[in-house]
């Protein structure tokens, strides 16, 4: 789960990291009041969970409170890569002498957190990694030992940080690591960390991503989720305990298991790509397939107007095919979908399950024995409906 810039910076501040003393506004008038209070030039920053805000016109300077209101007016309600701006952060503008990148993330391959820094701050670290990988200094952190101060010295040396900044930098890095650990972050990033014209270090922008598996033990963080900005279907799916990601294709997929769900998506694309057809979503209903889960999943899939066909792919392992079939019929009765549905059941009691579905005589429902057959039938059905 990603946090907004203002949420991340507020966390950082709790760990002694200097951040601008800005506030969040949801209306132009609030932006005016904050700018008034701060005095001087402010920067109005759209709070959306997507990169490239600046290029999209979502970050603007304002030299007065009136100007702040005008800029906030422009930015609030904007759509940036499909994300609507509901909040802006009004920060005092800083005079920037130098920009640094500083971040901590989990390095899967090393199974350790890694501290990353670069003297090329202000651009995305992936961009620096492509253009000038040597500019990125990496220091692994032993998860049992924590971060040692000598490692921070190594990083400061590596990015040629002026020596008069080392002490302040060290405190910021220690704070960031503590913040990373205590909040079960998957990413804690300050980009840019700036040296101001008067020689102070300040975290101008911040980004945190929280390990989804750890949200259960951080209710305060879980409560920060911005459900206003995310597609409603994703909120519903999360509440129903279903793993769902909306995509741009026409075939709604309902699968048990994440790997098989990706595979099912891939198959619709494999057979549909030449007709411009592909998966409408990733959806893993998890183990078992009770009617209420199937109903909820079906409703979520159908909430996407692009969906022209639904493909069920259930490999009954623990779950028995006949039970799954009954669950699907119940869900069908409840949701009454009008789009064609292709159902592929495999595994335990799959034949019985297919027989049950066939005898239910649902007009827009067809069964398939293999994944290949199911994907091909789904593509056919979607083509017919386009």
């Amino acid at each position: 789960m990603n946090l907004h810039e203002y949420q991340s910076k507020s966390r950082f501040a709790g760990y002694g990291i200097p951040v601008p003393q800005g506030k969040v506004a949801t209306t132009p008038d609030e932006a005016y009041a904050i700018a008034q209070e701060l005095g001087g030039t402010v920067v109005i920053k759209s709070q959306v969970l997507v990169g490239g805000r600046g290029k999209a016109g979502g970050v603007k300077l304002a030299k007065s409170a009136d100007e702040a209101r005008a800029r906030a007016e422009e930015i609030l309600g904007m759509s940036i890569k499909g994300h609507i701006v509901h909040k802006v952060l009004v920060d005092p503008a800083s005079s920037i002498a130098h920009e640094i990148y500083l971040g901590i993330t989990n390095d899967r391959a090393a199974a350790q957190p890694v501290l990353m820094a670069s003297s090329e701050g202000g651009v995305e670290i992936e961009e620096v990694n492509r253009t000038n990988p040597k500019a990125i200094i990496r220091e692994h952190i032993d998860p049992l030992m924590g971060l040692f101060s000598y490692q921070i010295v190594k990083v400061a040396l590596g990015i040629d940080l002026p020596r008069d900044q080392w002490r302040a930098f060290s405190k910021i890095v220690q704070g960031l690591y503590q913040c990373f650990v205590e909040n079960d972050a998957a990413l804690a990033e300050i980009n840019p960390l700036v040296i101001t014209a008067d020689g102070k270090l300040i975290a101008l922008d911040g980004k945190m991503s929280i390990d989804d598996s750890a949200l259960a033990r951080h209710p305060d963080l879980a409560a920060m989720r911005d459900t206003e900005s995310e597609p409603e279907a994703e909120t519903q799916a999360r509440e129903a305990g279903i793993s769902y990601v909306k995509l741009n294709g026409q075939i709604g997929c309902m699968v048990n298991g994440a790997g098989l769900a990706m595979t099912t998506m891939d198959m619709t694309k494999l057979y549909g790509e030449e007709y411009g057809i592909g998966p409408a979503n990733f959806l893993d209903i998890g183990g078992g397939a009770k009617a209420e889960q199937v109903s909820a999943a079906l409703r979520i899939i159908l909430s996407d107007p692009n969906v022209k066909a639904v493909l069920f792919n259930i490999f009954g392992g623990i779950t028995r095919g006949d039970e799954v079939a009954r669950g699907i019929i119940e869900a069908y009765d409840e949701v009454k979908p009008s789009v064609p549905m292709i159902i592929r059941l495999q595994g335990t009691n799959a034949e019985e399950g297919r027989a049950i579905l066939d005898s239910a005589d649902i007009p827009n429902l067809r069964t398939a024995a293999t994944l290949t057959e199911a994907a091909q039938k789904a593509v056919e059905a979607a083509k017919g409906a386009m």
Partner: protein
Amino acid sequence: MAILLNEKSKIIVQGITGREGSFHTRKMIEYGTNVVGGVTPGKGGEWFDGKPIFDTVEKAVEATGANVSLIAVPAPFAPDAIFEAVNAGIDLIVCLTEFIPVQEMMRAYRHVKNSSSRLIGPNCPGLLAPGIANVGIMPGYIAKPGNVGVVSKSGTLTYEVVFALTEAGMGQTTCVGIGGDPIIGSSFVDILQLFEDDPQTEKVAILGEIGGRAEIDAAEFIKANMTKPVAAFIAGASAPEGTRMGHAGAIVEGGQGTAAEKIAALREAGVRVADNPEQIPQLLK
């Protein structure tokens, strides 16, 4: 001979009286797996379907000589269960548990690596050695003894491929689900090495997915070290960048970990890569 398990393996289940643990233990026993007992703190001295329950892994090992432990406890207790199994000297630990926080798992991982224990998982379906033992949640009937080794990050996708192999008359030595989390105890490379060394395994199927670079490492290992034919499927070719696809580890980040780069690396290593997992049996014929 299977890898990791044999007729003498003695298996305990940590969390044997829990919802998941009790269900799968029964299935494992039905399959003929040599389950020698279980662990539930507070229930030591009681019995579960004729198997003794112990309060700690140490007690279970003392009493039964167990050398394999299946962990089927909820996420908040799983890291501790891994530490306990390691400290009790269990050789093979199989952790089913999903949703272990990554930072917890990094600590547990380091402890395992500093020990002589081997960990499979977490967030995995476990191991199935057809005709020998079923340690995990894979439906036993999908497999049959044979000469194909299967290793996978996924659950039902594994069943899909194992079932397809079995239907095609190609049995398996061992089916290993290594798990879909970013931090897992055993990598593709670890298991490929075991298959390469196992005299009964003649062919290998590897089922990967987007995210991380485990499949790239596998490709490099295969190129340098494997003599046996390998077929592969990589799930997630149609997944967008920057979004997690169910598994905590299944995410393309900063252009890294795409299906395309993994497929290319595997092909470069001489692996036959399927577009469709149902092709795997043909590719291994």
